[in-house]
């Protein structure tokens, strides 16, 4: 239990309304977007500035108390689940966009700034922030940096790490250290690159300097309808083989098409086996020839129909379907769990076959909506949390799908992170020497292991002694 004296010290830093410790108010914080496991922190602290984060961490450092950072809580691997970390530090009140340098395409934001706000702030300058996870209306830059988030446009534009030039990191001691910055090519180890994707285990990122890109001059957004996922996959391979790198290349299967159509009614063919959402962007002059080439490829793989968005409104409608597909799935079942795995792009048909087999074996419904161009799959496992047997089948199915991804030469996660969800499977991907190198790196930043403990790395001992009862109880 946290002592009243400690809570008093924390309130002295962030104000009375910046510390939440009433049990009923803490319920909101007992999980993030990964809802299969729950555990509430003992207190949530909501600093309003990097200086306050630093001061809060100094207090915790004095007392040797572990902490878990949290942005908007949209993470999907349980990265913000408190595990043997009594204090949660939420960055949501640090919402300042501190500097915009349109000429150099840079922006400095605090960690709690929402992803979508960044693009909104620079749209008038003809710029945008490229990483656009589906949760972009809610997720924060701090969370994006922690998870190295992706999104549909990563095929062409890269993920978060390609767009972060520098960070201010609050080390677990409370020391604020600036790494990287607006200028490229600074000498030394790429510490910024190491902090991005560290899932909050190095400390708390309080500010980030981001690279902006010129908003594409024009878009062509196509919806290609196929009889089967196999035919759609073949089209994906064909597009890549033709030397075309679309801005986005997304696949949705029948279950998703039906859910999305029920939710948004934009005339998707509910009897189709799969649709591809293909977006080409760039200088206007090059786009129509590319549309023609993409269409030709699709025709060779038996496309039923190709629709091209005629204006911004139609483009927006298509993207709404894709980005809100997860929400639309809520119509199919009381609960769902979104998996995140990666296979080499050419193995997408193999993994989809595996997923279909897993679904049948475990008597589950699994819908697929994913970044086909990257080989980054997102099977959505539908279930009812009141059915304990079904929950355990969902967990088993998820594990089997990930094992299949690794067996095909892929990865456990493309953009959601390891968190608590996949730590047990890390040895599938990395050997003892690899994991030892990672833990050495962690100790550089957090020698006491107080920053988001018991994440990423399998630690069987703690798992049994500390976490299992809580996690079990929460199931």
């Amino acid at each position, binding site marked *: 239990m946290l002592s009243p004296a400690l809570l008093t010290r924390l309130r002295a830093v962030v104000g009375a309304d910046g510390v939440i410790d009433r049990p009923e108010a803490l319920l909101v914080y007992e999980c993030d977007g990964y809802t299969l496991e729950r555990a509430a922190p003992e207190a949530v602290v909501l600093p309003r500035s990097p200086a306050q984060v630093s001061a809060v961490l100094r207090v915790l450092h004095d007392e040797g108390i572990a902490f878990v950072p949290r942005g908007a809580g949209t993470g999907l691997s349980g990265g913000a689940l408190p595990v043997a970390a009594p204090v949660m530090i939420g960055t949501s009140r640090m919402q300042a966009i501190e500097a915009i340098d349109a*000429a150099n395409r840079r922006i400095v934001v605090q960690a709690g700034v929402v992803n979508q706000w960044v693009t909104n702030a620079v749209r008038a300058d003809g710029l945008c922030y490229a990483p656009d996870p589906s949760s972009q209306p809610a997720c924060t830059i701090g969370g994006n940096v922690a998870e190295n988030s*992706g999104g549909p446009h990563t095929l062409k534009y890269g993920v978060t790490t390609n767009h972060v030039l520098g960070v201010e990191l609050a080390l677990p001691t409370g020391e604020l250290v*600036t790494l990287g910055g607006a200028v490229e090519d600074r000498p030394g180890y790429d510490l910024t690159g190491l902090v991005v994707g560290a899932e909050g285990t190095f400390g708390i990122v309080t500010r980030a300097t981001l690279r902006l890109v010129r908003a594409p001059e024009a878009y062509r957004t196509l919806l290609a309808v196929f009889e089967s996922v196999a035919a759609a996959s073949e089209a994906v391979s064909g597009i890549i083989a033709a030397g075309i790198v679309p801005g986005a290349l997304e696949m949705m299967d029948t279950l998703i098409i039906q859910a999305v159509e029920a939710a948004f009614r934009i005339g998707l063919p509910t009897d189709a086996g799969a649709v591809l959402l293909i977006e080409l962007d760039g200088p206007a002059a090059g786009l129509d020839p590319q549309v023609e080439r993409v269409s030709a490829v699709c025709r060779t793989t038996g496309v039923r129909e190709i629709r091209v968005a005629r204006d911004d409104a139609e483009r927006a409608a298509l993207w709404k379907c894709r980005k809100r597909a997860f929400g639309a799935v809520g119509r199919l079942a009381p609960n769902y769990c979104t998996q995140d795995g990666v296979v080499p*792009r050419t193995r997408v048909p193999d993994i989809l076959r595996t997923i279909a087999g897993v679904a049948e074996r475990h008597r589950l419904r699994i819908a697929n909506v994913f970044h086909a161009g990257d080989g980054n799959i997102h099977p959505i496992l539908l279930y009812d949390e009141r059915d304990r047997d079904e929950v355990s089948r969902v967990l088993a199915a998820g594990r089997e799908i990930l094992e299949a991804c690794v067996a095909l030469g892929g990865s456990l996660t493309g953009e959601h992170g390891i968190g608590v969800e996949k730590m047990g499977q890390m040895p599938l991907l990395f050997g003892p020497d690899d994991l030892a190198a990672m833990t050495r790196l962690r100790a550089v930043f957090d020698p006491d292991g107080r920053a988001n403990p018991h994440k*990423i790395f399998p630690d069987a001992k703690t798992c049994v002694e500390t976490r299992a009862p809580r996690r079990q109880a929460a199931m």
Partner: protein
Amino acid sequence: MSVWADIVGAEHVEAGTAAAAIDGVVPSWVVRPGNVDEAQACVREAAGHGVVLVAKGLGAHLDIGAPPARLDVVLRLDRLDRVVDHQPGDMTVTVEAGCPLAALGRVLAGAGQWLPLDPPRADATTVGGLVAADLSGPLRASQGRVRDLLLGIRTIGADGALVAGGGRVVKNVAGYDLPKLHVGALGTVGVIVEATFKVRPRPEREEAVVIACRTGPSAGDTALAVWSSAIAPVWLEAAGPGALAEGPGEGAAVVVGIAGVPEEVADARARTLELARSRGLRAITVADGAGLRARLADFPVEPAAAVLRAAMLPSDIGAFFADVDGVARERGVPVRCLARAANGVVYVAVPAADDVAPLVRALRPRLEAKGGGLVVERAIAAAKVGVDVWGDVGPGVELMRRVKAAFDPAGTLAAGRFVAGL
């Protein structure tokens, strides 16, 4: 010798000579392992006996970095030269560290692809050197650097253990991003033995438009105007007077690289020519854009006592050209400058060794004061005397010391070559 010969065979061990020296420091031995196991055995042997080693590929970039604090063995990896796995459909390639970029390029070209990194001396550059020295060229303006294209890595740690990071797929956030630790680290935290990259389709056509400018500063400003326009250049260079052998006149120039499908190229060409016209500047089109780009990529290795690399915001390039011009006139030094205009990087070629330290002293503080820096990127050994080649690395330096201590506590790997004496 016998201990090294026992590992790699006597025919792959040579006594060090002046030809193998790094910044004038001659190694005792040059050892050429034939596979990863042998390379691991070499590192273990070094670690066990307090031997300091520096990994090397073809040796084209060893003039980067500070002089070694000590050097016993050069570990030459040119026998690890296989392209391990190229999957055109996945747009990925896995390649051993000693593989020359030219050989890799031929494999990729067979599938219409390329690794869009264009370092100087591309023909004498290995994959390991590319990563360890974080080499890049004009293409970085649109394609990024090594850090943006490197998906996975295998390295030998200072204890001889083989350590893998990242993976072979284009999107992967499992575990820490260990590949980034080794990019530009000059082999100070591990010996790179294999790397996996994402590759891209090679554009159908590549041209360039050269815009003649009267002065370096006006070239900097014109380049910024191109970058801010809708032209979307694939690369963008601003050359100070005398830096570009070809093009209209001996003055400064902006070189705009345009590539893509023919329609895109034609459109970008027309827009660039129009932009030049609207500013009252002459411009010519160069059909062999790739050829011109390769020559610009080689600017940092053209004959000079030293080439400095200045880092700043892109909008400061024009003013920096003026600064350099002022300092150079004051000292009567004929320097030449070339900027990667979209990245805020300016290379300054200094002809005489004596002028290097004074130029660094004059220019570095102004750059550091604005969040940038100045590195002596390449220099003959004489030009590094009395100069900190790296400069101030900023507030992260204490963490960097801890990184080095965590990964190479005994200083087995390239001791003294990196920032802050690491």
